[in-house]
């Protein structure tokens, strides 16, 4: 049940326990306990909304920054990852395989904001070899949801 429950909450975290119970053929109490357990164990870390940024007029800017980093003796990338995680501008941070090491997603009020953040806070960190900043122009799909709305249902309504 655990995986199915997580999969349903990933699709829609606002499903009520009663709805989840029906969908999984369980009791409400079982669902409540399982969710509590998942939250306590840190499997579920939080719930957030998927938002179409174009429809919010706050003109915020999102950038994805590639960092190349020299790993530190003993702790590898952990130390620098911890430092970057603590910056509140940072929305997500991941260690990557491939041409660069850390992918940092940053949100700022404008382009200048982000430029300052990269040049004054990320680039000078010890171990950072280089940065490459990419600005997000438009999001088409986020967390499995098509931001531009669902595809039109093209199936014919008829009984052969």
């Amino acid at each position, binding site marked *: 049940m655990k995986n199915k429950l997580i999969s349903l909450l990933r699709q829609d975290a606002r499903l009520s326990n009663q709805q989840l119970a*029906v*969908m999984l053929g369980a009791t409400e109490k079982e669902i409540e306990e399982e969710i509590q357990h998942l939250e306590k164990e840190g499997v579920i870390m939080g719930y957030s909304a998927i938002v179409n940024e174009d429809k919010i007029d706050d003109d915020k800017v999102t950038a994805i920054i590639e960092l190349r980093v020299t790993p530190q003796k003993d702790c590898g990338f952990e130390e620098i990852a911890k430092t970057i995680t603590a910056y509140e501008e940072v929305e997500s941070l991941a260690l990557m395989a491939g041409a660069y090491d850390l992918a940092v997603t940053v949100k700022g009020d404008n382009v200048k904001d982000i430029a300052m953040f990269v040049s004054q806070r990320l680039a000078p960190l010890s171990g950072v070899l280089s940065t490459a900043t990419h600005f997000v122009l438009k999001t088409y799909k986020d967390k499995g949801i098509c931001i531009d709305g*669902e595809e039109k249902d093209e199936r014919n309504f008829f*009984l052969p």
Partner: protein
Amino acid sequence: MTNYESVLSEKVKEMKPSGIRKFFDLAANMEGVISLGVGEPDFQTPWLIRKKALDVLEKKRMIYSSNQGLAELRECISEYLQRKYNIKYDPVSEVVVTVGGSEAIDLAIRALVNPDDEVLIVEPSFVCYKPIVELMHGVAVPIPTKEENKFKLTPEELKSHITDKTKLLILPYPNNPTGGIMTREDLEAIADVLRDTNIMVLSDEIYSELTYGRKHCSFAEIPGMHERTIYVSGFSKAFAMTGWRLGYLCAPQPIAAQMLKIHQYAIMCAPTMSQYAAMVALKECDNEVQKMVEEYNVRRRILVDGFNRIGLTCFEPEGAFYVFPCIRSTNMSSEEFCERLLEEKKVAVVPGNAFGESGEGFVRVSYAYSLKHLRQALECIEDFVKNCIEQKKENV
């Protein structure tokens, strides 16, 4: 000027267009309809299958296959049926690949029915059986099934409809539109009735992969029934391949050979590209099908619970992707319910009587739709039913 009335076949002229054509036209032409009406999966055909089709389009010539279907595909079908349902068919002489399950049904009826033969049709059921029987000058004899029996065919119901003229029983389980299934015990009881007769069975098992909670049992697996069964299935439902137009039938060699004659003259062969892709479906897509079944199951539970909550009692269907709630508590006929629901809430469901008279008092609701879509539709239906009940009270 040609008198078209005089040139047309009498049997074709007698064939009725669907009685609810008006309703369908209305729904099809309305803007912004929340449909729960279609009978095909909302899932995309699994990528492995599509990839195979792209691959053969690139590398192979798209020529006719053998009339009977690609030999390798028939072998795959034979292995699949053995693996899944423990039924054995010889790929060389007992399997015919058809243009959808629909053609398989057409072939079976045409190969068996003589004028005045009676064909028992379990109802409610898919709409094509009766017209084809009548086109063959046969007599369609509906056997209505009941909600209290979970829309199963009971041995008593079967017995009471058998006459000296009964040629064929059409057994459509898992059932469209009710979602009802027949368990092994249910089928054994039917087999007991048939064992001492010459009645043949057209077992339309197109939804066999889509069952919830228990594994499908094929009628051909029941001892002694293999020899009298024409097994029909296809790729449309389980593998989300409706537009690929591919199905198959399996039958004892003397029957398969006759059906093949009709198929080779009328159709030549099923689409070759689809046949290549279908081999991948049978061999490599168990997991993909399983994922779809799990998703359908969640939706099914939401709808059964939702309708019962609204006050439209809904028995728990164990197969296909339809629920069949009873709408009698609204004091409306199935068609009236559907027309008003469409007009007032723009939600389209199918009147149960479209599937035979015994479907009156019910509506067919498909859950080949996203959860979000289903929940939205349920809310509209709930509003609609509340209004109806209030109006009913005011009128009293």
